[in-house]
């Protein structure tokens, strides 16, 4: 199932093997950046555009911030027989210290904190797993990364769906895809209400041994009580990553003609966020996202949609 992890399918020829040197790059950058001692505290001060936003964009150092939003929403699931992921509640949980931080499932260290430029390294679970068996308790508890692969199913049972297309396989009939743990490095440049962000992720758990890279731009508009932000993004995912989750091999116990090897590719998309502040603690929240999937993923017998979309509308309360 797992294949060699390289950036070889990039449209450009790289002189080095990035997966091997990425941890070294992280260390080198950390050394250089920390040696400079560039840590400015006043990044959300009055002169910064971010101070004009709602309190969501800036957080008080050393204190937990918890927000819960109840409402109605869903995330579409591109997999064959994949359950639409219901979004009845959204959470916002963050803590930022002098250097370490936790922000919505991401545990990181900030090496550089200029008013405009920041660089951080973090570990987080790979959210690619969310499309598989969402209501599996292990899925919720993020523990399947450590659980063994279940034994193969009875080969007599046909994994092929009732779909008219015989080259489709139900996500329920394949072996378990596990959570991977990512080591990420993120560079952000913020100029007032504009922000550019570049993130490199690599799997350090050995689950898929793949990488991904994301380039995004965020623009914020705001009024006295409202805020709207739009973030177009383009994401590249490696062969290994796509193949682990959407490829099909002998371990999946399907007929040979359904075997499929996932291919790397670019996925373009955007996310939009709107909030209207009702009071100091209450706000209306609208969250929407769309992501176009690459052909190396869509061509898989496991996938029946060429995109995923998310919409949530609700009322949030911040403690």
């Amino acid at each position, binding site marked *: 199932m797992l294949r060699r992890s390289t950036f070889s399918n990039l449209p450009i020829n790289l002189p080095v093997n990035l997966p091997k040197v990425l941890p070294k790059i992280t260390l080198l950058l950390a050394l250089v950046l920390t040696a400079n001692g560039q840590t400015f505290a006043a990044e959300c001060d009055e002169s910064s555009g971010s101070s004009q936003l709602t309190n*969501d*964009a800036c957080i008080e*150092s050393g204190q937990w911030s918890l*927000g819960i939003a109840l409402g109605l929403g869903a995330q579409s699931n591109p997999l064959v027989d994949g359950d639409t992921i219901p979004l009845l509640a959204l959470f916002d949980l963050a803590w930022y210290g002098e250097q370490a931080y936790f922000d919505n499932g991401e545990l990181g*260290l900030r090496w550089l904190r200029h008013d405009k430029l920041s660089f951080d390294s973090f570990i987080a679970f790979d959210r690619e797993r969310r499309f598989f068996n969402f209501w599996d308790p292990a899925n919720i508890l993020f523990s399947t990364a450590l659980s063994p692969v279940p034994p193969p199913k009875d080969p007599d049972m046909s994994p092929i769906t009732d779909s008219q297309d015989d080259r489709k396989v139900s996500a329920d009939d394949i072996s378990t895809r596990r959570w991977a743990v990512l080591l990420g490095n993120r560079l952000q440049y913020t100029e007032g209400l504009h922000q550019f962000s570049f993130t490199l992720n690599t799997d350090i758990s050995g689950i898929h041994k793949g990488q991904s890279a994301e380039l995004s731009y965020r623009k914020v508009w705001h009024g006295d009580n409202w805020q709207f932000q739009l973030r177009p993004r383009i994401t590249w995912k490696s062969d290994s990553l796509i193949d682990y989750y959407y490829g099909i091999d002998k371990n999946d116990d399907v007929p040979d003609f359904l075997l499929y090897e996932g291919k790397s590719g670019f996925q373009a998309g955007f996310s939009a966020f709107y909030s209207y502040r009702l009071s100091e603690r209450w706000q209306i929240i609208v969250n929407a996202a769309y992501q176009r999937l690459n052909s190396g993923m869509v061509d898989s017998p496991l996938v029946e949609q060429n995109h995923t979309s*998310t919409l949530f509308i609700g009322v949030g309360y911040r403690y």
Partner: protein
Amino acid sequence: MASYYPVLLILFKHLQLYRPTRFKVYLFGYLWLGFTFTMALTPSVNAQAKMMTVQEKSAVAQETAGANKKAGVNKTAGANKTAGANKKPAPDEHKPQSSWHIQPQACIVQSLGDDCMIDITLTLPELDSGEYCYYKNEQQLNCFDYQAPVLQIRLRFNENTVFSLRDASQETIFSQLLEIKTRVSQQKVRRVRDPWSFF
């Protein structure tokens, strides 16, 4: 962060020398992350020392302000003796930075944005002949002749400010960052992830 350097250096040296397998790289990575997280989350001796320094500075700031109200002139006269302004150094003589001293270097305010007014006291080394001026960022303050240096200045500012001394040719010969500290921790930082992005 200085305490991290030996670990990071040793780690990087090992990575270069032994060309380890990816497993070793990741193992080192885990250890490194664990160590740095532990260091970041645990109040270190350095951090405590920094806190002490801030407290001391604030105490000095209050003491200085109080003392100046009572006997500002006498204090200035005493400080002038420290300067030893009549001695003229050789033209190429190097002036060690350690002979400079400015006190206090921080000001405590109730909340961020509040105005801070402090009287700072300076200790200067022997100056070359000529005229010198103090600056608050780029704003010119007092100017004086090298024989009669001004050693006490009242400053008002509401954000971190660079206080400097420049000679007649506008060359900065001494500068010091004067920090604003809030009584209640209200330091806000920009989040790296979008809010409400748990899923």
